[in-house]
């Protein structure tokens, strides 16, 4: 255990982790034991690829006790560009030694540049080569953040650098913990799960741990009762927003987003996006940057079916379709009337009703 963490804080973390992983509190001592006795702290290599370092920021700062401290106690962080002591050749030598030894965990942050490989060069290597080498001997690869999982904001169309998630770019299996930024609790819990059971947690079809990503924001949202009662915020800064009305009409993508945000919260568990009155923008869903933007409308900026590259709102496409049909039918009706067709044939009165 890291000397700077109190026993109390440490057990609190273990308790929180047990709850998050869906284990009973009876597991807490075992988690504590597993963390303390991990005979050899698993070495971790943290790759910083095309990213904004927000993931590290979120990871290092947001929980109390701080995740960075915990991780220094639980794992052996052998390589992390921002916070490692070594630099230059020493750092790369560290990395090489870890790779050769094997059995390490890779935490990848940021996208891999596949279209313009030179867009990201690390230690003289392209991000593809660098990532392939660093993951070659790894026990597990955990991609954290929407960039490392699905490409992230720089993968927005037309995606000039060919930014891709680690799994897509290298064709390997990764644990995906998306989010812009990802939630530190989810990352820590995944690692603890690995230490405790010797294997990765159950993953869904998109590589996400199901303990965190099997429910949607909307399923656990504190504003959900207002959604069901038809009480919606119509304007930012309004009284309704402060009262906690639902943000659905402000474009909230909570119903579309698999994420544990309402349960884990952010900023040392103080608040979260929807709690603060901002609609969820779906930052944990694949391609949210293309599919969910503009973020403050319900179904905005959708591609027009049949017209590549043209985008408009779903409402506009729909109403245009109906207007065109009305116009077509109207013109035909006028033509039919003009041709005298509408006057019709004389109606027969004879019926056979046997």
């Amino acid at each position, binding site marked *: 255990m890291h000397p700077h963490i109190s026993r109390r804080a440490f057990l609190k973390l273990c308790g929180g982790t047990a709850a998050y992983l869906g284990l009973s509190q009876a597991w807490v001592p075992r988690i504590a034991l597993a963390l303390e006795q991990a005979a050899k702290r698993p070495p971790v290599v943290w790759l910083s690829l095309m990213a904004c370092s927000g993931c590290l920021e979120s990871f290092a700062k947001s929980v109390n006790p701080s995740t960075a401290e915990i991780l220094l106690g639980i794992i052996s962080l052998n390589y992390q560009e921002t916070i490692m002591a070594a630099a230059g050749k020493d750092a790369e030598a560290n990395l090489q030694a870890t790779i050769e030894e094997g059995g390490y965990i890779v935490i990848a942050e940021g996208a891999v540049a596949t279209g313009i490989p030179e867009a990201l060069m690390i230690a003289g290597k392209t991000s593809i080569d660098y990532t392939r080498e660093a993951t070659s001997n790894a026990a597990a690869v955990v991609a954290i953040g929407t960039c490392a999982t699905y490409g992230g904001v720089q993968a927005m169309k037309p995606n000039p650098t060919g930014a891709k998630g680690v799994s897509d770019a290298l064709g390997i299996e990764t644990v995906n913990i998306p989010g812009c930024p990802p939630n530190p609790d989810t990352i820590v819990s995944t690692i603890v799960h690995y230490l405790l059971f010797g294997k990765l947690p159950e993953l869904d079809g998109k590589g*996400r741990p199901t303990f965190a990503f*099997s429910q*949607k924001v909307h399923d656990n949202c504190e504003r959900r009762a207002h959604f069901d009662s038809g009480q919606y915020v119509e304007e930012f800064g309004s009284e309704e927003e402060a009262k906690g009305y639902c943000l659905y*009409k402000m474009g909230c993508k909570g119903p579309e987003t698999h994420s544990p945000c309402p349960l884990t919260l952010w900023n040392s568990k103080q608040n979260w996006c929807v709690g603060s009155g901002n609609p969820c923008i779906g930052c944990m869903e694949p391609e949210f940057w293309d*599919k969910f933007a503009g973020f403050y409308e319900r*179904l905005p900026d959708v591609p027009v079916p049949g017209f590549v590259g043209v985008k408009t709102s779903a409402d506009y496409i729909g109403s245009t379709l109906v207007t065109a049909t009305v116009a077509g*039918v109207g013109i035909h009706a006028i033509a039919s009337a003009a041709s005298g067709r509408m006057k019709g044939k004389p109606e027969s009165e004879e019926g056979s009703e046997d």
Partner: protein
Amino acid sequence: MSDRIAVKQRHWVYIMLHWLIGGMIIVLAVTGFYIHKPFFTLGSETDPVMVMSWIRWTHFICAAILIESVLIRLEMAFFSHFDADWRDIGPSRKSLKALPEALSYFLFLRKDHRYWRKANPVMAVFVFPLMLLFYAIAILTGFALFEGTFFWELTNTNSLFSWVYDVFGGQQGVRTWHYYLIWVFACLALIHVYFALLRTLSERDRTFRSILNGWRLVPRKHAPIRGASGRKKRGK
């Protein structure tokens, strides 16, 4: 003697199914639009009515009724003992043969057309199959959304409808397509009603009334040989 006689062309089951399907589409479109854009609210702030919940509940129930009705109507179109009419209302050799003439009639290239037993060939060849296609899209995307809402396992690969999300472009894509259906069905319904109105006015054959009571004026030589029940079938 008149050249036309009234014939009971539609069985009451078909009339009922027609209005069930039409009615459900209207209810689904309105409730669907509310789910897209909640445009009213009920009750007071402290004692609200659960409008969204009830609207969604209605939407799901009506969707179930619509699916049942469409399936029954399809089944009857092919296998009914008294009026298996898929040749009249779907693409068939019969409706395809009548199509060029119908098209030139609707484009004012000719003055008259042969007798159509039920829907006109344009409806049969284009509009009804399109409706079926959009029913299929509605049902698939609808079930995918439903499953995603009520059964959290959707993210798992073994879920029944997760592939729908891949086909329609993810969470937002499925919602967008499901929403387009309101407008698509509005267009198709408009065309359908217009054709019926046109026929009623230009043929004066009581087409509008026939979808209520089943009776329509039919040229004598196309009427069933005996009786007006429509039960005894003539050769096509």
